């Protein structure tokens, strides 16, 4: 095959029009995809049953089903193993599921890993509460609630209010950037965006009584990060919402022989929270001071 023949075929390809049935599939898929991006996605199955594309594709023996703009292949959808289908498809489903979430609570823990292989669970752990525009971080030291942090929007910035129960003080710090810079749901979305680059399918296992499927991806796949930074994320097979997220191999400042693993679990989606959850509240008798000031005063 010489260069002229290739050019000739390319020119012929260039003159091809999109067949009417492909045009119809493109328009329908594009419309349906767009609908999945709006927060209120209802009666999805009834839409599927009404979709002319479903019939068209079935007749073509390819048997694709356009579901909210997403193509499922029978081999993966009929047995419920959606994750075996094209990542573009179920990735969008997961994002759509996340977009319906109004609030989340989850637990966050840190595991320190020493170069010799020994592991040490940090004594502190957090419960995170997230709403549509605010979030709150309850920091425990063992069983003791040591601190509550409330992050509330303030124009283009966020104000972090804190109450230290161990030091009986409170205060506030302004952070640059909007809620989007801090939003844990955005962080989950970030993980989902990159699942099509996942290095490993971790298979299925039961976590917190839920049937889950897991993926592993190196952070080098989505940024200029070391290959050793691994993320593992487990989704509920039924709801397609994250159940367990691990970020491995992250460095500890000033300790080259130590890395840490961040683990988020015990997710509760759309929990019923008390009205005042995201409103900073200072106990009587606490003083407005930086924790370091209190510590210094106590050491004197």
């Amino acid at each position: 095959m010489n260069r002229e023949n290739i050019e000739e075929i390319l020119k012929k390809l260039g003159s091809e029009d999109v067949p009417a049935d492909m045009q119809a599939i493109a328009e329908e898929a594009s419309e349906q995809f767009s609908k999945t991006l709006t927060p209120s996605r209802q009666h999805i199955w009834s839409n599927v049953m009404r979709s002319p594309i479903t019939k068209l594709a079935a007749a073509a023996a390819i048997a694709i089903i356009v579901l909210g703009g997403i193509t499922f292949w029978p081999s993966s959808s009929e047995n419920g193993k959606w994750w075996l289908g094209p990542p573009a498809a179920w990735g969008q489903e997961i994002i759509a599921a996340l977009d319906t979430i109004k609030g989340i609570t989850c637990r966050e823990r840190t595991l320190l890993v020493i170069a010799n292989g020994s592991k040490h669970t940090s004594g502190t752990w957090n419960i995170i509460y997230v709403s549509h525009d605010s979030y709150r971080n309850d920091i425990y030291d063992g069983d003791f609630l040591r601190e509550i942090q409330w992050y509330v929007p303030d124009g283009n910035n966020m104000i972090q209010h804190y109450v230290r129960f161990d030091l009986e003080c409170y205060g506030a710090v302004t952070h640059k950037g909007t809620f989007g810079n801090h939003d844990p749901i955005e962080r989950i979305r970030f993980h989902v965006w990159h699942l099509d680059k996942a290095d490993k399918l971790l298979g299925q296992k039961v976590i917190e009584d839920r049937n889950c499927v897991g993926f592993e991806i190196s952070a080098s796949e989505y940024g200029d990060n070391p290959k050793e930074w691994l993320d593992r994320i487990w989704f509920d097979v039924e709801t397609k919402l994250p159940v367990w997220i691990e970020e491995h191999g992250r460095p500890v400042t000033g300790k080259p022989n130590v890395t840490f693993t961040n683990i988020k679990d015990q997710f509760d989606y759309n929990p019923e929270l008390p009205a005042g959850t995201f409103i900073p509240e200072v106990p009587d008798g606490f003083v407005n001071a930086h924790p370091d000031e209190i510590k210094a005063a106590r050491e004197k």
Partner: protein
Amino acid sequence: MKHSKRLEIFEKVRAEYAGFLASVLWKLTGDKELFAEALQYALLEMWRKVEKLDGEKAGAYIYRIALTANSKAWRNRIGRDGRAGQPQLNIEEDPQDRVSSSESAGLIRRAIAQLGAKQAGAVVMRYLQQQSYESIAGKLNCSEDTARSHVSKALAALKSKLGNLI
């Protein structure tokens, strides 16, 4: 960026480029299943990168998105190294065999999906979209001479890949 703003940009871009996307992806896939999959990838990537599509460079980004989506869809079918599911052409026994025109087109599409981004972009713009070198240079953010070079190298790469097949 707020979700509502992202949606607004996405809808604008979708309206403007839907026909273009369908056209490019059909020419690059020529297969219903691949077309549908590439389209899904493209729509998803448009949503992911929607912030970048709100400006003069939108057209160039859409090209990139379409080509990446096409490569992903092909990669799922033929594997990362392009070896999976090779057509049964029996070329080893008789290199002089010629394949039909539609098979040739299929092989060229498959080979384009394995080209680097700039070469693939250049050859698609030049031959599948019949664009001028000036326009190609603008979209690839390079000089006209460089655009010509990308096209030429792409053709050479295709010839190298397909020399014995077609």
